[in-house]
């Protein structure tokens, strides 16, 4: 009986690992860095090596790199920087995705650091305490984490965040000018971080155009519960909303619900979401981490490993508004949107997060 149990456990363990191996990211486990170590340990002996050395960046993220939202925005930025630096020979990228369990993410961060990666990015506001605990053990490694502003006063930790309220405001201005039912639905995940600031900014943008418009908000309590997010969107639509927006990787469900109606418009954030519903996505706020990643790398090479907070804003090109070219936005609405962008850049409008 007991023997059988062991056989079965081994069998199952084999099965699980067998399918986890090809992409380290399939299961939220930490075997990834371990297998990497075997391959790449040799060249990392001397962290401050010769100029031809490959710059090594590792990133740990809560959802998939293809989530059309938060994780993808960072992954795309890393790929762009890699291309600019001269491909894989110049910059190596390793990632662990689907790390929604913080202990798993912490283990991955520690593994990457101990493998001698130059920069380790913990891409999730839930990873802060892990970074705080691990960073002092690896004084030669740059850690970056977000979205948050706290570097814990450590010389090798960067914090980064996005002023999501700014793009939220722009989306709000556009939405207020397009709504006919005067009801706008917001499908939020959890009332924290950039999800909250985006939605706060959006509400301010709507109110700036027409304070009589109802902006109703729902929270599902999860960043990943697509089913509940979809139902929340359907509820907004049933209550009369003709425009929806929202934040997190689960909004693909909201976009699907909008698409089912064929007429409810969508405003995106974090990533350009136009491809999900080309006729219905008006504009998306896009997080562009490229400038920040480049600066972190440059600083690292120059000997500065951290101690600063980066904030993506419209005025530093960290935030961009991607108007969907397939959606025929009326000229006056576009003009109002662009004016609001300029006003935020110049400080004429301040959006409170």
């Amino acid at each position: 009986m007991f023997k059988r149990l062991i056989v079965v456990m081994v069998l199952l363990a084999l099965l699980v690992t067998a399918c986890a191996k090809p992409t380290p990211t399939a299961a939220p486990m930490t075997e990834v860095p371990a297998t990497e170590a075997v391959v790449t340990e040799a060249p990392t002996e001397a962290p401050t090596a010769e100029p031809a050395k490959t710059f090594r960046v590792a990133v740990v993220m809560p959802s998939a790199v293809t989530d059309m939202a938060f994780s993808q925005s960072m992954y795309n930025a890393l790929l762009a920087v890699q291309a600019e630096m001269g491909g894989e020979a110049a910059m190596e990228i390793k990632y662990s995705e689907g790390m929604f369990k913080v202990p798993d993410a912490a283990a991955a961060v520690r593994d990457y650091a101990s493998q001698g990666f130059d920069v380790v990015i913990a891409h999730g506001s839930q990873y802060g305490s892990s970074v705080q605990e691990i960073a002092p053990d690896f004084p030669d490694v740059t850690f970056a984490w977000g979205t948050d502003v706290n570097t814990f006063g450590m010389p090798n930790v960067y914090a980064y965040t996005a002023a999501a309220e700014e793009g939220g405001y722009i989306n709000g201005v556009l939405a207020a000018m397009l709504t006919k039912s005067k009801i706008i639905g917001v499908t939020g995940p959890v009332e924290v971080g950039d999800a909250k600031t985006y939605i706060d900014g959006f509400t301010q943008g709507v109110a700036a155009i027409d304070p009589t418009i109802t902006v109703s908000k729902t929270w599902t309590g999860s960043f990943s519960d697509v089913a509940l997010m979809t139902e929340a969107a359907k509820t907004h639509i049933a209550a009369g909303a003709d425009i929806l927006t929202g934040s997190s990787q689960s909004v693909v469900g909201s976009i699907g619900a909008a698409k089912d109606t064929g007429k409810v418009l969508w405003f995106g954030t974090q990533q350009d979401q136009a491809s999900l519903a080309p006729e219905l996505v008006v504009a998306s706020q896009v997080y562009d981490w490229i400038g920040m990643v480049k600066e972190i790398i440059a600083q690292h090479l120059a000997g500065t490993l951290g101690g600063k907070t980066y904030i993506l804003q419209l005025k530093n090109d960290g935030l961009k508004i991607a108007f969907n070219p397939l959606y025929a936005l009326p000229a006056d609405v576009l003009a109002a949107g662009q004016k609001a962008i300029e006003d935020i850049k110049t400080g004429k409008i301040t959006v409170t997060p």
Partner: protein
Amino acid sequence: MNDVFQLSVIAGILTSAIRLATPYLYAAIGETFSQRSGVLNLGVDGIMLLSAYASFYVVLNTSSIWLGLLAAIVVGLLMGLLMSFVSVTLKAEQGISGIGLYMFGLGLSSLLFKITIGTVKTVTGFQPVKIPLLGNIPVIGEIFFNHSLLVYGAFLLVPVAWWILEKTTWGLRIKSVGQNPAAADSLGVNVDRVRYVSVCIGAMLAGIAGASLSISLLNLFQDNLTAGQGFIAVALVYFGGWKPVGILWGALLFSTVNAFQLWMQVLGVNIPSDVAIMLPYLLTIAALAVTINRVRQPAALNKPFERGES
């Protein structure tokens, strides 16, 4: 004006609740078959995920919703065979092997999604079908008779499952195997075979539950699409006292409160969102505490059967 508004809200809540209950019904009624035969299958969520992926992939590539549904059932069957092999033939600890099956389904579905699809896409899945005449009744028609076929199927499954379990010899065999496998065995019932079939039926229904998400209610696939719904389905089996009708009430209670809290948020009722989100879980736990009847639990649940033992 106010009355109309109220009626429309109630209609909205009920329509939502019926949609939300669908995957729970398939998965929980499937799990009932499995548990009634004495096998606790905690891998429901993993089966749902893999089947959701399979059906989505097939619909994406063939545009045939029926082939997609078939794919979900076949994948469910394969997962059911795996679970029965491990828990019935090899007699492994059921809870542990179920968790293993869950992680296998979660990992494999994410991996396959990444390799074969890669990014979020949407498909045209099962569309709402208005039932003639009934669908034209004001309010009632909108609430009950304007859903996709998989939604109707989930509710029809309740009487069908009840009939199988209570009125057929086959149902009697399932229950006897789950209650007292040694006695059933001595009467010539093939315990292992009954368990295999029951687990596989459960797994195929879990497969349909997955498909009801990916090709009917959401029409998309994403990593960990179910977000733990399979585990709630297992809880609903206990809630429903291992009876299809009990599960129906449990699923409807949970979904209705969930739909209710969404509507309260949409209407701007001033309660903290965290409290609203907790509401369905709190109520379900409360109801469970009041109604649970452990006596109904199949006596041989979670116990592998070995001939000649005890």
